[in-house]
């Protein structure tokens, strides 16, 4: 049992948790941030992807204590209140989700993809970069379209910010 502190979606949080507590359980059970999901137990499906210190990680394969002191962002904190992040918007506009269960992880991975590779993403790149996110509903067709569109919109935002 240890007191773990970390920033989650811009807010300082803490909880007394067992050392074996996974980051995903810290978020879901301790902080009621249930947008981060668990779809497998072999670190494959990506439903649990969050950003730790700006990088996409599988929160089912990180202990909460390992993330102590980190800056964690989840799907709930991706955009401001009542606003949508361009990637969230793109998923809606392109029907990039059906049951919605893999969606938070997909969106967090997609944003990370653009952060790393920039806003111009080919279909082949998007498909390759989605290796760690499994969707059973969409056949990925509209997810790929969504990410391309979301990346473009993020690019515009970046350009605007630069100006």
């Amino acid at each position, binding site marked *: 049992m240890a007191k773990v502190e970390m920033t989650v979606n811009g807010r300082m949080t803490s909880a007394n948790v067992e050392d074996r507590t996974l980051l995903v359980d810290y978020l879901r059970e301790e902080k009621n941030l249930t947008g981060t999901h668990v779809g497998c137990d072999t670190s494959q499906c990506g439903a649990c992807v969050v950003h730790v210190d700006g990088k996409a990680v599988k929160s089912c394969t990180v202990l909460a204590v390992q993330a102590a002191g980190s800056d964690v962002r989840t799907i709930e904190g991706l955009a401001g209140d009542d606003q949508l992040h361009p990637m969230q918007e793109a998923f809606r506009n392109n029907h990039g989700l059906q049951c919605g269960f893999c969606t938070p992880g997909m969106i967090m991975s997609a944003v990370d993809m653009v952060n790393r590779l920039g806003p111009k993403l080919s279909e082949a790149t998007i*498909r390759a970069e989605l290796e760690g996110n499994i969707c059973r509903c969409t056949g990925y067709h509209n997810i790929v379209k969504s990410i391309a569109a979301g990346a473009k919109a993020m690019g515009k935002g970046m350009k605007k910010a630069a100006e």
Partner: protein
Amino acid sequence: MGIEGIGARVLRKEDKRFITGQGRYTDDHKVAGMHYAAFVRSPHAHAKIKKINSKAANQMPGVVGVFDGKQLTGDGIGNIICGWMIHSKDGSPMNMGAWSALATEYVRYVGDAVAVVIAETLAEAKAAAEAVDVSYKVLKAVINAEDALKDGAPQLHPEAKNNTIFDWEIGDEAATDAAFKGAANVVEMDIRNNRLVPNAIEPRSALAEYDAAEDHFTLHTTSQNPHVARLVLSAFYQVAPENKLRVIAPDVGGGFGSKIYIYPEEIVCLWAAKKARVKAIKWTADRSEAFITDAHGRDHVSKAKMAFDADNRILGFKIDTIANIGAYMSLFSSSVPTYLYATLLSGQYNIANIHCNVRTVYTNTVPVDVYRGAGRPEAAFLVERMMETAARQLDVDPAELRRLNFVREFPHQTPVIFCYDAGDYETSLNAAMEAADYANFEKRRKRSARKGKLRGIGMSCYIEACGIAPSAAVGSLGAGVGLWESAEIRVNPVGTVEILTGSHSHGQGHETTFGQLVSDRFGLPSENVQVIHGDTDKVQFGMGTYGSRSGAVGMSAIEKALDKVEDKAKKIAAHMLEASEGDIEIKDGEVSVKGTDKKLLWHEVCLGAYTGHNLPEGMEPGLKEGAFYDPTNFTFPAGCYICEVEVDPDTGTTTIEQFVAADDFGKIINPMIVEGQVHGGVAQGIGQAMMENAEYDDSGQLISASYMDYTMPRADDLPSFKVSTTETLCPGNPLGMKGCGEAGAIGSPPAVINAITNAIGHNNLPMPASPHNVWAAVQAGE
């Protein structure tokens, strides 16, 4: 249609919560006093339980109860049922073995639940489950269906001699045999349809609450049909009477059939909540647990032969199938290899004589039941692999052989029960061939050959039956329930509308498409319409969502209820406007008298209905109508899929160069959502064809029991799909809809395998066509 009416690409209303992490799935729910369940499961495929010692587990921290099957049955909890009675061809009823939610004497598959631990935390429950000491006498197990039928095979259930549940047939065997006698050519094939694991990404979960003061239960569960769950939990498993049990299926993360059934875990959590005197128990499957407890799909082996005359017209089709049903009969298991399968063996073709024999057997594997398509993929695979193979053997173009044999007049009565009501198969075939640039395939093949690659093309002209189904028809075939659907339209005094439906959305977008019917009818904006589903306390009854039935059946019920609402609203408006009812028109949120400028706003009529100040003589106040819709026939979506592949002979790696789908789904409410359904179905079909396989070792351990070994299609395994639709209206329902949820998974596997076998030049290729299997097939040759 308006911008939000029928036929419009309306963006989904439900998306906002899913893309912001506000979805509410079962495991997201927490209640005060919640405990956790962990199941003790059999590590053996077949064994006799000698003793269960739970003393140590009971004394572990946080544990409030350890319960086993004897306690469960002792409390009068009923055995798990199969809801569809099949009779063997000798007239005897199917031989169903007993299935208790917790095993009492024997375990029959790895994962069979033996006991449950209830504890304060999940970690405590899991630790104690490990400490439950079960001693077994291990018995010989049988895994393959063919082996289960052999003399001396291990016997699973005393009720089922030789492990045979039923030996069933459809069609006229004598007439079919006679047709073969007159054949110019006969094509024969052995076909295995691989076993699949559905793998909805949300694992199954149950949260059972017990209110001791009221003796009332509430179950949140990952279900496609909460009302059926309540009915079965009450009437058959005796957990609680229906008025004391509320079942809620909140947001559900995909189903594909696997969340139709009422599984042991839900039953046990409800029962144990009361038994352990706790407020609530939650159980959520790990993926590893899901692999060995969610009902699997497919697993057929068949011998098939097709007879042709000298002009290549089909004279007869004869099939002998063995279906592996696993260790127990799951809820709809018996319907899959029978009425959902063999009734589709006529395909899109005019075949005068068909006979199919099906033996269904128990094995020491996870129970097999409905998985996306359910029986129809198995039928389409047989028919379309056969057509392609026949074309190659008869040396005719595969498209021409199909054209020659297409059903062209409707209604068309097949020799295997179904009467096809409408269709135009040639138009779909032409559309697909054009989209695929079929004519120039040879050029592309040569280009691949120059790179040392093998290119192939294959097609599949599938038909399926959905909109399940006319209650009287399914009743006569053995179904234990009717398969109608219910709807209620509640118009509020301010004119907003609530649609209550017995269908359940777990990805299909009902909150959007069902609302489109109201927008279309009254011209109301979509934000004024709310769809309510998935809660037995809110919706009176419903049969749920499976078998591509929510459109053709669920939406038809809504249409019927809307007819009644419109009728009453018009009566009220006519009275208020002092006009004749026949002259009233409702459009764009206004209720007007045709040809005049007399009108009321929609909400004024609604308010009038509720104030009751000025209603026609004798009319009850209010504006709320319900309807039950029972379909008159199945619906028959059909289409043509074309797959083009390139095979790397050095490694067996197969890439899908293009995949074309041309479907006829009848009337389409929201093309965006329909396309999404096709994409997803095709991906699952490609998964079956090239990747997925539930593989057991001889001792009955599932080897492909995680995503490390069970190949799930990923983004880089698939191309973008070329999807289009043609339309012949279904005459059987008010909207002319056919259904689109399963087509992709039904039509695609044969197209893929036809393409790969075309590429490698022979048919000697098992499914899934994994890199290893393709490489081995290339090495082995014909």
